[in-house]
């Protein structure tokens, strides 16, 4: 089955979130990875931001950076640039310059993840940027908002240091502007980040007025519409207008904005400060490199790619993700990064740098009496004398077997110190315990003992004038805690090397193929008889790609693949087990079978609603978008005079608040195609916001150039559709906002862009015990920064069931989810248990308190045992049930009652002395 493919390591260019994710996915799949970053730290854009939308996750970036730093298969090259790439897939060479020295590094494949730059508005005279001190860019504004920024989180306007009370955001600066900036596309992220900045401003200083001037409010992603509604409810004012000029008012430092309302009325308003929501563009330095090595770019200067192969470039062996691939947000960038890893697994076999670690078994270790190795790490900028102080203090405590400083080669020096001191547990002191936890756990594993025999001491926020006392206090507590630590119960489970894919649409098919190509057998379960899902109703992608042709090929490849078992007319009816070892029961035409698998991908799709408005079903020429091209014949198109597209049918209304994302681009693409077939056809698109985000903006511009007429309507004045009978003439009446009066169109046909609803998600969520988001789509893992992970470890998600999106993004997600699943399938065993809650059956009163308290629904009553049972593979270790149990029957060895109840005595007894 497997054809011969070359073997190699991979080089990832760019250490932002996309590069980090690509490196972790690749290293997880067994590749050695060179992660090359131009600056002197990893993280890219995120560390410059103040919070992330929709849910802030910036605190989770550090742990990813740590994971890269600590991974034996990732080599990080900071302050490094790549000047040249040569060779072919499997045998590529990159010349890398670090600190002026150039070396050649071999790699089998390259991932371009060099990210974006923001638009520099200095050249745009009307915005006065650079001349007026109180006009700043959004990036500068977030710097002011950041608590670690120069202003310590207090926004002050540059001219006089006063806190601004009236702030205006101007959208689309360096976006959607061909004339002045030569940037035709929409940068896609600015509406959301402006809302974020404004809403955060309202949170921290409620007396500050925030106003966003925008053209179209583009909040098209997962949960974004809720974010918008929330910002409005926090008092963020939205004004639909592109501000034409920014004027300085005499000596006060205030800024006067002139703008026109939709009906033409001119306004002027004074603000204390103006924020320019600057757009994105691909990193200039990489563009030069891309051109040099012959990577094809599109007219917007992003790396050009096939709509059905979103992360591949024109050069085999070179892949792209994140900002270089287009104006993407964090979630999309991460999905693409994993997708790039999946694509590489198809064409390159992994060549690791390091062999998997070998863990000995040290059964002789006696746990009592406690003997603690106190280890410490002084992070950059910490006083060297702190080390001496720690040693002096720690040595004074009972139970301490030795004190060691840990610098380079943290794991091996910890292992050695652990052995030398004959310790049976570790107390690790550092400035960021959370980032050192994996190091300590790895060291304990390599010492052959339970990886949870440790505790930590936080060395941050110490008062330099009272260091000794504070340190002694913290170390005393640490020693007391470490003395009470007991080995957490751990079980190793064999990973079932098979994947389950639910859903036979493009997302399901793509992820199945990706995994099968990477060598993992796959079972694909589809409810319907036919494969293809919603894509069967679509003629072309917004870019113009032929969907039918693509889908035929995809279905054929899936059916022909020896590694894929396709089950149609089948349904997963139950699922149990945990990451690495699941068992699903599948019902196919009345026959029940069992599938054992290690990781799964949920892509059950979504459905378009059938509207009860706009006379749908009452006239034969009123179509849903999904049936438009199947039912329209070209002869009719040729003689039709007027066509009407109605947007947001059912979407963005109180009962279904989400944006269905793909309808705007569908309408634009279809209108352009219809216009091609019949140039005399008048096309009217009735919309609420034209969400032609990203490079879809080019379609919007082309549509306007072709004379397609756009009429905006509000929720309180929806278009009225009338027809006397099934085959009678249709009239559409809509309030024209510029004329300020209703207009009536006699339509030959109407396309209703009906909402995409997560119809099947509820059932899938129930069977697989995963959560849904507030809109009813599959929810992202609460660990955050995991856009393709469901709330159940080992189960991933892709396609419309995550949120409505186009085929290209679905494909990227599907392949990305496949790479995430492969990270699990690449392992031989997974460890379960550890920092989890355990039930002491003898004390359990079976009162169901834990069953009702657990936020993840893990505990259940085991009737045979007569006690509650908490599956260690599913428990997340929050301890809520431990705290709530009225019988004190649940224990958590990592955070015992003994520790928590004993802590005050440890502190205050010492303080009394």
């Amino acid at each position, binding site marked *: 089955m497997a054809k011969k493919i070359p073997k190699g390591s991979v080089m990832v260019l760019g250490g932002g979130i996309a590069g980090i994710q690509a490196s972790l996915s690749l290293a997880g799949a067994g590749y050695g990875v060179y992660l090359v970053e131009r600056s002197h730290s990893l993280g890219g854009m995120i560390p410059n931001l103040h919070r992330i939308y929709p849910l802030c996750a910036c605190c989770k970036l550090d742990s990813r950076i740590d994971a890269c730093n600590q991974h034996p298969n990732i080599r990080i090259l900071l302050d490094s640039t790549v000047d040249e790439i040569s060779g072919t897939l499997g045998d590529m060479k990159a010349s890398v310059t670090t600190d002026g020295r150039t070396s050649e590094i071999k790699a089998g494949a390259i991932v371009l993840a060099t990210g974006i730059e923001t638009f520099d508005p200095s050249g745009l005279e009307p915005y006065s940027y650079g001349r007026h001190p109180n006009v700043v860019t959004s990036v500068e504004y977030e710097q002011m908002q950041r608590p670690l920024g120069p202003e310590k*989180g207090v926004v002050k306007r540059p001219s006089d240091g006063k806190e601004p009370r009236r702030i205006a955001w101007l959208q689309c600066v360096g976006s959607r502007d061909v004339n002045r900036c030569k940037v035709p596309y929409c940068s896609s992220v600015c509406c959301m980040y402006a809302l974020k900045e404004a809403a955060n401003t309202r949170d921290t200083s409620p007396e500050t007025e925030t106003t966003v001037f925008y053209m179209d409010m583009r909040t098209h992603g997962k949960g974004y519409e809720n974010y918008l509604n929330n910002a409005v409810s926090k008092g963020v004012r939205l004004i639909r207008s592109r501000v034409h000029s920014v004027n300085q008012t005499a000596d006060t430092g205030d800024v006067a904005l002139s703008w026109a309302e939709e009906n033409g009325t001119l306004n002027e308003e004074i603000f204390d400060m103006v924020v320019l929501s600057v757009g994105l563009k691909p990193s200039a330095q990489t563009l030069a490199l891309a051109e040099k090595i012959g990577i094809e770019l599109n007219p917007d200067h992003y790396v050009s790619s096939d709509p059905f192969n979103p992360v591949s470039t024109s050069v085999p062996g070179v892949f792209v993700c994140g900002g270089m691939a287009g104006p993407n947000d964090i979630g999309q960038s991460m999905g693409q990064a994993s997708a790039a890893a999946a694509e590489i697994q198809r064409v390159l076999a992994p060549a690791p740098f390091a062999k998997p670690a070998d863990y000995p078994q040290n059964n002789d270790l006696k746990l009592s009496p406690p003997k603690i190795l106190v280890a410490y790490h002084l992070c950059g900028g910490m006083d060297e004398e702190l080390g001496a102080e720690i040693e002096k203090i720690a040595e004074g405590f009972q139970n301490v077997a030795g004190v060691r400083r840990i610098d380079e080669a943290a794991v091996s020096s910890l292992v050695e110190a652990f052995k030398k001191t004959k310790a049976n547990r570790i107390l690790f002191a550092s400035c960021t315990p959370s980032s050192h936890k994996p190091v300590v756990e790895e060291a304990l594993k390599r010492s052959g003992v339970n990886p949870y025999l440790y505790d930590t001491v936080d060395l941050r*926020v110490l*008062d330099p004038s009272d260091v000794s006392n504070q340190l002694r206090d913290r170390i005393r507590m640490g020693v007391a805690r470490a003395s009470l630590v007991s080995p957490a119960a751990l079980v190793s489970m064999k990973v079932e090397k098979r994947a389950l894919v639910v859903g036979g649409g493009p997302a399901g098919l793509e992820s199945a193929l990706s995994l099968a190509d990477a060598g993992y057998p796959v079972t694909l379960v589809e409810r319907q008889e036919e494969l293809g899902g919603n894509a069967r109703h679509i003629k072309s992608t917004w870019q113009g790609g032929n969907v039918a042709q693509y889908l035929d090929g995809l279905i054929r490849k899936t059916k022909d693949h020896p590694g894929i078992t396709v089950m149609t007319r089948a349904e997963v009816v139950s699922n149990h087990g945990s990451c690495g070892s699941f068992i699903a029961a599948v019902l196919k035409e009345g026959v029940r079978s069992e599938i054992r698998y290690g990781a799964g991908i949920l892509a059950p799709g979504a459905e378009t609603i059938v509207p009860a408005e706009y006379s749908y079903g009452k006239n034969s020429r009123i179509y849903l978008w999904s049936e438009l091209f199947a039912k329209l014949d070209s002869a009719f198109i040729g003689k039709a005079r007027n066509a009407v597209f109605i947007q947001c049918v059912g979407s963005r209304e109180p009962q279904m608040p989400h944006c269905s994302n793909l309808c705007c681009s569908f309408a634009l693409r279809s209108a352009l195609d219809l216009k091609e077939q019949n140039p005399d056809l008048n096309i009217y698109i009735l919309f609420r916001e034209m969400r032609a985000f990203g490079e879809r903006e080019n379609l919007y511009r082309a549509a306007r150039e072709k004379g397609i007429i756009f009429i905006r309507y509000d929720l309180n004045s929806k278009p009225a559709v009338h027809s006397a009978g099934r085959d009678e003439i249709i009239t559409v009446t809509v309030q024209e906002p510029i004329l300020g009066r209703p207009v009536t169109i006699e339509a030959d046909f109407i396309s209703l862009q009906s909402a995409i609803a997560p119809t099947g998600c509820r059932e899938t969520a129930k069977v697989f015990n995963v959560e849904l988001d507030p809109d009813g789509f599959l929810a992202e893992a609460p660990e955050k920064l995991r856009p393709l992970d469901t709330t159940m470890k080992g189960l991933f998600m892709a396609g419309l069931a995550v949120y409505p999106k186009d085929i290209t993004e679905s494909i990227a997600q599907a392949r990305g989810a496949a790479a995430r699943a492969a990270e699990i399938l690449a392992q031989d065993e997974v460890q379960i248990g550890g920092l989890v809650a355990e039930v002491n059956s003898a004390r359990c009163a079976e009162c169901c308190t834990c069953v009702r308290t657990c936020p993840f629904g893990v505990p259940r009553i085991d009737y045979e045992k007569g006690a509650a049972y908490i599956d260690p593979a599913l428990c997340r270790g929050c301890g809520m049930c431990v705290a709530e149990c009225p019988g004190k029957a649940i224990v958590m060895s990592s955070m015992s009652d003994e520790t928590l109840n004993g*802590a005050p005595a440890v502190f205050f007894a010492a303080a009394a002395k």
Partner: protein
Amino acid sequence: MSEFVPKIMAFYCSNCATSAAKVSHGMSKTMPSNVHMIHVPCTGRIETLHLLKPFEEGADGVYVAGCQHDSCQYIGGIAKAEKRVLQVKKILEQLGIDPGRIEVFSLSAALGYRFVDIAWEMTEKIRRMGPASMSVNP
């Protein structure tokens, strides 16, 4: 008589509150020595009894620092902690102890400066209240 320095115990969660600590550290803020800190995996782990014990041992104040409601990775941890703090406030009130001696705070990296600020605020507030109990001679 020397000035009263309140003994305070602080429970903080290993997620949001710890990233807040990073921010405070980055801002060179320093913790008052009278505040004794203990970290927990999630503030939902903290029991009513854990919050009473410090008072039993002579603390003058206690506080819990956890995540924001919308960002607890265990979904409802901070909400649980708030309810338990409220219960302890009721108990303290019945014991004739000012319920203001126990508080709960929601932190995040964005509110990172608060990690240290709340320690100083609690110290100042409790200092004005005076000692929680008489010293005991066993």
